[in-house]
């Protein structure tokens, strides 16, 4: 399969999943940070546990690992960038992928959000050289994974993540039940409260 075709297929599945999870709506994402809708936690951690399980299985049957450069390295840039992304997601209601999902449903605010990401990127390109700080000085060896750092089998990390996911899921159900009537979805442009 050509690279373009596989990219298109992955994009189709990704967009469909984000939309079906309700992430085209900024209400769903904001609901996570108001502890009334845990869809975001459930989808994110569910995806991580499933993807990690499939990846370990693929390695187990002898398939080649991903290029090591795919594994992010820890530095100040990742720390600050993560904080800004979380804050921006709440202020604007989207992240890059969900802004496109929201735009596909006709949301004008999603289009504005998406277009403003480019000036944000340019702002960083302009700002970085003005600061006497090396944001990319590594805090840990490059491409470090948790199992390498702790010196255990990746299976244990997977087990710990699955456990954290399960506990978070239960906690989410508890909060969602407490906020019953505040989880909403949009159908034909109208807000429906479940």
């Amino acid at each position, binding site marked *: 399969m050509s690279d373009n075709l596989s990219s298109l297929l992955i994009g189709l599945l990704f967009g469909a999943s984000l939309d079906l999870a309700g992430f085209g709506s900024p209400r769903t994402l904001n609901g996570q940070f108001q502890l009334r809708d845990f869809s975001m936690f459930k989808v994110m951690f569910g995806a991580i546990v499933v993807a990690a399980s499939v990846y370990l299985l693929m390695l187990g049957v002898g398939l080649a690992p991903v290029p090591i450069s795919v594994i992010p390295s820890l530095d100040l840039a990742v720390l600050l960038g993560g904080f800004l992304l979380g804050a921006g997601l709440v202020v604007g209601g989207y992240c890059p992928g969900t802004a496109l999902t929201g735009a596909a449903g006709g949301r004008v605010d999603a289009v504005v959000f998406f277009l403003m990401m*480019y000036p944000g990127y340019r702002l960083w390109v302009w700002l970085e050289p003005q600061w006497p700080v090396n944001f990319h000085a590594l805090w840990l060896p490059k491409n470090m994974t948790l199992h390498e750092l702790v010196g255990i089998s990746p299976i244990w990390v997977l087990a710990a993540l699955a456990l954290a996911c399960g506990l978070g899921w239960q906690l989410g159900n508890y909060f969602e039940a407490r906020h019953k009537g505040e989880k909403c979805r949009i159908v034909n442009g109208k807000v429906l409260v479940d």
Partner: protein
Amino acid sequence: MAWMVFGLFIGALLTSLWKNRGFRFAIERGQGVSPVTRLVLAAGGGLLVGLGAALAGGCTSSIGLTGSALFSVAALVFLGVFFVGGFAASFFFGRFWRV
């Protein structure tokens, strides 16, 4: 990359149509929030996310999800501060999303 972005849009559009939500131009906003306020917030959020993604060298999906599925320490730390940033902003901006 461009093909994936295009696919993402089409994939979301197809499920949106399939689920009978349709394509309808609208500004999604919380109760009592004016369309202008909402667009300013969307623009500000987009700027922050663009800045953050440029700084971190990736976004929620690329670093947070893919990286964490590979057990990257950086990705797990990223997800932690991502949620801290979200809760901090929600303290000030959560009121714009009253149901």
